[in-house]
């Protein structure tokens, strides 16, 4: 079920109604759990079994890890969780990719191997809930906190519908404690939640789908070299689309949870105002980047094993982060580029630190808009690989962006260019202005009627756009 559908409106209204009835807290939690399963099942009912499997395995593993003292046995329990979680992910998400690459390698080696093409359906959100449940087993292994005793609370943590299929990837110690005592939204929380839900849907439906998706799709499916303006417009459109689509989903998820009385942490913080790439990853898909930091980069040694290992660890983390997004070498290159950017940035920072005798930040490194735009420019280069269906397309777009395309080949009309220009300019201004602020804090500081005016505008645009039921891009990841 997608948030931008009539089905969800009805579903959410019913869930809200029941959640606010004077029932026992356990009953309300069972209701939320069943609602979450329903939320998932209306997409493809059999895949509920995968969710249940993931829930059972991590609950059971967590329980054993909390009591087991033998280090070898603890490792076996962790291995069971890793296989149980990453096994289905590998099969469903990477099965075809691995087979394709195996066939290519076999053919290169002169072996004539042509297996039947597998027909594997990717369960929605498998990467998200796999990482979420996996974090519990890993925390148990690291003895971060005590094992969860209530299966109901744990199952609700795994399946909580607002963030089940596309994050934010919530940690057990953030969400499970909220299930321990009765929660009901205050009027302020409810209204703020509805405001965030409207804002998130506006980002997804109006900005991503209605105003940007068409231009991005046209440019990336053109299949030919083109005018530099068109190539740039297509890439900028996609950079806006992916932010508004995924940022919109996260905003909706946070808003929906808030309407029920729960708090979920931010997943985006005006990423296109980032100054440098460490800053970018502190603002873009925050819950994934912190997950990768805590469960991959730091266990690999982080920056504790010398400068060379630090660079290798950064690159490995970003390559795996790229592959997490999709089973394609283009995603690996996307991750690799980000790894390279981070490495170069670290190299420059280390050099400058070594040469600077003044305490505090280097005077020439004072954050400014030009730095943010340079970061934005380089991020856009990476989006080419993220969006292109293959390297031929990516290369064609890149060539065209840097004036090596066909200047006579135009793909977009003036209206498309106008839409992309207005939305992307507006997006950059808002990101820069808001780079240290939170939307709800800003809303709270304004008079009620001005919040009302903005909120009305968002809602009317949402109704007028009449774009519904299209999936969020990150559902496929």
């Amino acid at each position, binding site marked *: 079920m997608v948030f931008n559908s009539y089905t969800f409106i009805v579903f959410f209204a019913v869930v809200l109604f029941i959640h606010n009835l004077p029932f026992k807290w356990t009953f309300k939690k069972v209701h939320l759990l069943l609602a979450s399963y329903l939320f998932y099942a209306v997409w493809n009912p059999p895949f509920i079994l995968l969710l249940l499997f993931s829930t059972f395995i991590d609950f059971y593993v967590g329980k054993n890890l909390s009591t087991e003292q033998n280090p070898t046995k603890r490792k076996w329990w962790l291995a069971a969780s890793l296989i149980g979680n990453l096994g289905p992910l590998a099969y469903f998400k990477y099965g075809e990719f691995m087979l394709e690459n195996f066939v290519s390698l076999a053919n290169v080696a002169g072996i004539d191997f042509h297996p039947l093409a597998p027909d594997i359906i990717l369960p929605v959100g498998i990467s998200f809930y796999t990482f979420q449940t996996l974090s519990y087993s890993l925390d148990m292994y690291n003895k971060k906190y005590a094992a969860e005793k209530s299966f109901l609370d744990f199952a609700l943590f795994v399946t909580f519908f607002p963030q089940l299929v596309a994050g934010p990837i919530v940690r057990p110690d953030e969400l499970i404690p909220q299930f321990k005592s009765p929660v009901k939204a205050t009027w302020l929380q409810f209204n703020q939640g509805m405001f965030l839900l409207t804002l998130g849907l506006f980002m997804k439906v109006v900005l991503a789908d209605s105003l940007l998706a068409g231009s991005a799709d046209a440019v990336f499916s053109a299949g030919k070299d083109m005018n530099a303006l068109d190539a740039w417009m297509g890439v900028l459109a996609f950079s806006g689309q992916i932010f508004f689509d995924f940022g919109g989903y996260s905003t909706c998820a946070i808003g929906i949870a808030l309407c029920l009385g729960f708090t979920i942490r931010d997943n985006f913080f005006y990423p296109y105002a980032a100054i440098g790439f460490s800053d970018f990853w502190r603002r873009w898909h925050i819950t994934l980047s912190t997950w990768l930091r805590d469960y991959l980069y730091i266990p690999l040694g982080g920056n504790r094993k010398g400068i060379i290992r630090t660079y290798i660890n950064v690159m490995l983390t970003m390559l795996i982060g790229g592959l997490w997004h999709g089973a394609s070498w283009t995603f690996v290159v996307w991750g690799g580029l980000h790894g390279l950017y981070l490495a170069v940035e670290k190299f420059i920072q280390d050099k400058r630190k070594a040469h600077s005798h003044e305490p505090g930040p280097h005077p020439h490194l004072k954050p400014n808009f030009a730095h943010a735009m340079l970061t934005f420019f380089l991020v856009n280069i990476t989006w080419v690989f993220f969006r292109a269906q293959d390297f031929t397309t990516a290369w064609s777009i890149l060539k065209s962006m840097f004036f090596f395309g066909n200047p006579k080949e135009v793909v977009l009309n003036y209206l498309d260019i106008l839409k992309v220009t207005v939305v992307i300019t507006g997006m950059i201004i808002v990101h820069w202005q808001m780079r240290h602020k939170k939307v709800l804090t800003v809303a709270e500081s304004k008079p009620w009627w001005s*919040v*009302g005016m903005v909120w009305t505008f968002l809602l009317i645009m949402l109704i*007028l756009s009449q774009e519904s039921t299209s999936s969020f891009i990150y559902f496929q990841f």
Partner: protein
Amino acid sequence: MHSNNFRKAAIMVLSLTTMLIGGYELYLRHLGYTISFDDSESIFADKKRKIYLPKDDATVFIGSSRVKYDVSTVTWRKLTGETPIQLANVGSSPIPVLKALSADPLFKGKLIIDVAEPLFFDLSGRSFERPKKCLDFSNDETPAQRFSFHINTLLESNFVFLDKDNFALSALLEYLPIPPRPGKMDFPKYPTEFSMMNFDRNNKMTDRYVDQDRKGVKMMQDIWMQLASMGAKAPPMPVHVIDSFIKDVKFQTDQIRARGGEIVFLRPPSSGPLWKGEQMGFPRDKFWEKILTVTGSKGMHFADHAELSKMNCTEFSHLRQSDTKIFTQKVVEVLSKEMGWKFKAGN
């Protein structure tokens, strides 16, 4: 902001939104616009689910906009007592849907295949895109999407402004006075009342459009002629390609017939220079007659019927509403009297 202030803002949002959207709805109704459904993949899927109705209960139509406009589903229902299942798509070939029907062992009903030659014989793949998208959606539709469709239907049945092609934000932006970009071929936005659609997926041009919107009619004439001239510039189809294509069609129709299905090809009217161009580009003996001969099918060509050949398509390609009733009556009459089709209502 105090809790009370956020509540005030929320009340303001509800009041203002209701007033503004309500005002927009009333304004559109005041301008004379009526309910029109979006030709979405969901409504296609809804109709496609009906193809399993018993043979004496329904007829399936596939093809392009011609059959979608020219066969009045209201008249059809009245005359035959059966359900018209409209699976045609504007600007599209019937072939993808024909293939899907022939590959479906459960489909054994009555089928009318619209032949608008430039689309029927378009092998470029462009005219396959829309039907393929609809078929893919139909196969993959989730229970949530189906439920959303029913709520959407309820809303679209009551609100004029819920018409994505004409009154959605993206459609409204197309009214901005922005010149065409040199080197980019774009068709202008179609006139609002050129394409209104009912819940049967039957399109119509309003009488107001046909009779009063001279500029809009001229625009559509120019678009059809531009498309026709683009087709005329393409190299002629080699005979062996045509033969191979029709052989494929025969395979599909044979499969349906083998299960007890009945098939008729239908050539709806076109007029003026468009009809002349179609005759030149697709000579009847090499295309229409060949389809019927090779597939062993019966066909109804508008030019074979005096009253139909006199009909004038104002914008060259589709019939006005009053003529669609006459055309539909004639189709039912020919099917029952000349082709032996049995209808529930006994025509």
